[in-house]
């Protein structure tokens, strides 16, 4: 089953109505893909899973996000337990990930004991390395100092950095500091300048993976789900053949493909948030407790050198799978 673009007001290949419809599906198990300018939504398991299966990649890594250690309200009274389940899920993957990205909101209130619990829990991850970027919950009262001390050693500026793995270039960005009244997430001029320099000497054929907490695309600005100066950052990446942008913050999977760039957001390991505009605000959403594990999960990313884009598999804690194969 597929839905096609009917309205494309911004001439960006994205049908806003179709896209919102597609996003509304996300929580209930659907996959949204923009292919050749056509937005398709697939019911879970309909097409892709059997067809592509799990392919052992040249490089595979996992994204986890929004653990919110310290949160204890109705939407999930035990976020440490669901984080442990997410870790078990990663450890059960057929191919152990080369590394894990945590895309922010490690904690609920930036408290030392919350950071401790998070770090202690992640010690059981079967992987070589964990890379972090902060969420706004990790930098609440000290401009991110505690986060930086524990998880940002050796980074540039306010905590941004890049590294290379098997021919792919990874860029970790910080868009939760120095936010301006009325604005969205922000990278700031110093970081933008660094990005431009960081990629200046790379070959255009180098696959690029950018990760940051708040989406680097305009998901729903009314709820602050976007980054004011992300377009400038992405303009430095236009010449590259394959760019994948991985974000958290919105506690649900969404995907958009725009030219050479694939945007993807991950589920939280703690609690879900409503689809854009589907509630009075973007706060934690209470779902029946037997449904909670359908909407929490991890993202497994596979990179195959002969393919143009990265394959992305979102797995919920309860076992449902959404897969976007690399092209």
């Amino acid at each position, binding site marked *: 089953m597929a839905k096609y673009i009917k309205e494309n007001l911004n001439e960006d290949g994205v049908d806003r109505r179709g896209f919102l419809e597609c996003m509304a599906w996300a929580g209930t198990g659907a996959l949204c893909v923009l292919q050749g300018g056509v937005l398709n939504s697939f019911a879970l398991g309909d097409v892709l899973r059997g067809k592509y299966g799990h392919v052992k990649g040249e490089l595979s890594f996992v994204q986890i996000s929004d653990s919110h250690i310290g949160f204890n309200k*109705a939407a999930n009274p035990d976020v440490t337990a669901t984080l442990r389940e997410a870790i078990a899920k990663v450890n059960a993957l057929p191919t152990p990930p080369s590394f894990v990205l945590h895309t922010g909101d490690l904690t609920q209130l930036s408290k030392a004991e919350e950071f401790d619990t998070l770090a202690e829990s992640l010690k059981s991850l079967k992987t070589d390395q964990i890379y972090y970027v902060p969420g*706004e919950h990790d930098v609440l009262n000290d401009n991110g100092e505690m986060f930086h001390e524990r998880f940002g050693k050796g980074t540039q500026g306010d905590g941004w950095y890049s590294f290379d793995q098997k021919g792919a270039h990874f860029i970790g960005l910080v868009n939760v500091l120095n936010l301006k*009244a009325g604005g969205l997430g922000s990278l700031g001029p110093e970081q933008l300048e660094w990005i431009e320099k960081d990629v200046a000497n790379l070959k255009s054929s180098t696959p690029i993976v950018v990760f940051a907490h708040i989406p680097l695309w305009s998901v729903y600005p009314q709820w602050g789900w976007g980054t004011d100066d992300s377009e400038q950052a992405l303009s430095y990446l236009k010449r590259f053949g394959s760019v994948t942008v991985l974000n958290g913050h919105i506690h649900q999977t969404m995907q958009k493909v725009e030219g050479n760039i694939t945007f993807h957001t991950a589920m939280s390991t703690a609690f879900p948030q409503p689809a854009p505009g589907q509630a009075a*605000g973007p706060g934690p959403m209470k779902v029946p407790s037997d449904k909670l594990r359908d909407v929490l999960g991890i993202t497994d990313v596979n990179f195959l050198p002969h393919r143009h884009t990265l394959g992305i598999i979102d797995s919920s804690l309860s076992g449902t799978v959404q897969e976007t194969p690399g092209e």
Partner: protein
Amino acid sequence: MTMTSRIFRIVMALALGCVFLTGIQKGLAARAAGDAAGKVEITIDNFSFTPSSVTVAPGTTVTWINKDDVPHTVVSDDKTTFRSKALDTDEQFSYTFTKTGTYSYFCSVHPRMTGAVVVK
């Protein structure tokens, strides 16, 4: 009918009749409360400040109470006049406005959340 209830009815009628002036009405109501008690409360709920704009007399103490499951802050746009720490659920922050002027503020965690206190 007591004097109080008559005044109440008049105020209610005015409020209902002036829907288009809702914002100003809220300001006036807040000012009245401020004058009487020297205190005004602003609720933080669903990622917004309610009321988003209040008008108070100099010397009024404004208190923000967070009713969300998410931490918020109350920070003046200049980031120096007043700046709360992160307020968890049911935590509050107060600031006493002594000088006249318009004080725009926002939540530094969710900067789309904005409000203003007018002191006059």
